[in-house]
């Protein structure tokens, strides 16, 4: 009996350790929505860098650091990895409903390579050359591995043409910026679960 109790107790301890080791890096995530402004000119414009950890845009001077996770200029997205930055980031796009994606995949993250960026232009938006507008496709969920190896999921809600101050403009006025409205959840604990 004594031995049995010890065994059961031991089992509980092992399970407890196991469970807690599983739970250790999971932190409940919060879904946030934010706007970022990016240059409309793909030639002369600069990238806008975003950090999931801070939930804000990071200064261009930090381009060579791991302080940002993705960058965007007009419709081109880069991740902090490969040719684009010193980080260990990556990205993949999943078709699905943002809220239903509860865990980031273990593998499959692409990094930026010369001539082959991880996010293919045109994969996530629908461009209309007649009206010169583009709309982020619904149901495209970007799953990021951040610069420091954490995970985040993101959905683009809108791409709005604006002037330099972020005020919406409509044709025939040319926009100088595109305002992306994004919805994201960042798992700061390091777990793949959201």
């Amino acid at each position: 009996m004594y031995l049995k109790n010890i065994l059961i107790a031991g089992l509980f301890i092992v399970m407890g350790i196991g469970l807690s080791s599983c739970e250790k890096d999971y932190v409940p995530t919060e879904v946030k929505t934010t706007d970022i402004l990016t240059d409309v000119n793909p030639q002369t414009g600069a990238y806008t860098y975003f950090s999931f950890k801070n939930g804000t845009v990071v200064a261009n001077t930090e381009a060579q650091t791991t302080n940002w996770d993705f960058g965007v200029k007009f419709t081109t997205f880069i991740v902090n990895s490969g040719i684009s930055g010193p980080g260990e980031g990556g990205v993949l796009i999943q078709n699905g409903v943002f809220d239903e994606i509860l865990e980031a995949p273990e593998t499959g993250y692409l990094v930026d390579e010369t001539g082959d960026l991880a996010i293919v232009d045109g994969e996530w938006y629908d461009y209309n050359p007649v009206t010169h507008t583009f709309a982020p496709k619904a149901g495209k969920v970007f799953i990021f591995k951040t610069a420091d190896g954490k995970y985040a999921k993101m959905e683009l809600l809108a791409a709005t043409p604006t002037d330099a101050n972020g005020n919406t403009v409509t044709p025939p006025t040319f926009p100088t910026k595109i305002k992306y409205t994004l919805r994201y959840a960042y798992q700061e604990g390091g777990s793949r679960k959201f």
Partner: protein
Amino acid sequence: MSDILRGIIPVILMVLSSVSYAQKMPADSVLQRELDEMVITATRTERHLSNVTVPTLLVNARSIQMSGNLRLNEVLQEQTGLFLTSGTGSTSVGGGVFGNGIQIQGMAPDYTLIMLDGEPLIGRQGGIIDLSRFTVSNIRKIEVIKGPSSALYGSEAMGGVVNIITEQRRKNYISSGIRYGSYHTTDIYSSANLDAKKSTFYLFANFNASEGYDLNTGTPEKTIDPYLNGSAQLKWTYRFNDRTRLSWNNRIYQGLQSSYFAINGNEINISGNGITTDMNINPVLTHLYNDQLKTILKLYTSFYRYEQKLNHIDTEETYYADDFQHIYLRAENQTEWNWHPNAQLIAGGGYNLQTVNTSRYRTEKEEHLGYAFVQNEWKPGAKWILIPGVRYDINSAYGNHFSPKLSVQFKFSDRTNLNFSYGSGFKAPDFRQLYLYYINPAAQGYRVYGASEFSVEEMEKHLLDGLIIKILPEAYLITGLKPEVSHGFNVGMTHKYKSRDLRMDFNLFYNHINDLINYLPVAITNNNTLVFSYMNVKKAYTGGMEYNISGSFGKGFEWSSGYQLLLTGDQDVLKKIFKNEVYGRDEPLGASRRMSIWDYSGLMGRSMHMLNAKLNYINEKGAYGGSIRAIYRSRWGVLDRDGNGFANMKEEYAEGFLMVNMSLQKKIFKNLTLQLNINNLLNQTDALYVPQNPGIHFLGSLQWNFLTK
């Protein structure tokens, strides 16, 4: 106006029209309408409307005159099942304002053939012939065939055919009119018809101008900028003898549309003009060998030019310039042979050469077309009409195409006809889809290549020089474009009630369209912008039902009402929805969710419901009268904010509208008629999606008719 009211008014209109429908028509009505008018477009030869086997709409000069409408787009938008579309282009991108086209049976304006006196009109901008180019003051009647008619008319006659038939009578008369109204809209026309023993001349001239208007004072631009245009027509018919006749029809149109806009959003800094020139020369020789055999030889030339030049106001530097020229030459013969008392054979063929020159193509492009058609109308017994027909087109750009048709009429009784028709329609790949070579000068720098200008080899070369960084898999699928093809079915009934002036028609239609041409990304440039080209990729359908009912009552009252239900869709989108692969947002910044079949609204730009009701009155002596017309159109998709290809959130639709137009007229002297029009009584406006519709506006006119014979 509230949504509820919008919903109720059409119902009231319907109730009103059924109330008047219940009224009995007195036999001595002064307005005996021609109950069985002649139409030509359905079979390429004159037929009584009651013997026509395909859905046909006829608008006569009298109803055009009573409506007080000035331009063809205004007349057509008041007819059942014809949706007026507004151009999708914006002047800021140099695409020009494409103007107003019409949808027939839910098919876009690109798929509608517009003819003037039986000859096709050219001058499509963005696929659309701007119908506001045509004055209605010289129109005798307009015939609209709904459903595919390519077996008779070839390419473009997929949704249907609009045939504008201009005036000429065996009478001497002079007629003139002057109209003036809101926004300094001015319209002057004059026509003269001289009939001699051998010759008949018809001369016509029109001048039309407006200052434009502004529906949204929050922007620096006007909604419609000032414009002016003029057109002239000379028609000469010479009768060599009883059997041989030459008719010579010349028409010229020139229009100037000014543009003023702000690319900085604050103040007007770009200005310029677009000048449209449209010319037709149309000699037709008709010879009757005997009662059985008739032949018609037609030589048709048409020229269209659109020159646009926009400048920066301060620096006077060119902002955008384009010069588009299109020449169309055609020779055609048609022979009609009554080979049996109950059968008529119509056979013909032709050759057509077209050239197009624009800065958006690399070189001048030309296209050759040869074609032949045959149709046999057969009446096996008094109750049946059977019309099979085929047409074969051989085209230098896309190869050969075969278009069959079959239509049947069964005269159920003296008053009831049942009609069935099947027709194949096609639309040849247009010059733009084949030859466009466009590099966007703006910062985005995207490119669009027509399918004939695109080559994978060139892309591979650019891969080496660094201009292209990636070729997408679709690029390897681009081959020569095929025509877009439709199969259309119409089943209908026409019925005349005992009181002779009441009639009703009902039609069910279904059009299945294959090989629709769509643009798609094929490569990525070093700026990370896209290269687009064209491919036959999509399948779609349009279907629905239409009814028209008309009658008269009292002394001089006439009324009519029509309704169209339209359902459309893209087969590929539907398939994906069934596989749960389509997502959408319920509001602009909402989260995505899976779309179900109930979220699907079909093709963009289509209204599910359209309803009209009209009431005309003219007193016994024709001394005074008036008309009131109401048109309702339910909402239609205009934007795709979530990239799923259809409208599913409120913000992706243009709101439905109800427009009421009214006119009153009175004869003030023997030959002089005064007319007052109040259009858009309910002041419904939508600056963005219905820019061609100003708010409530007025027009007064004086018309003088002098008839001698």
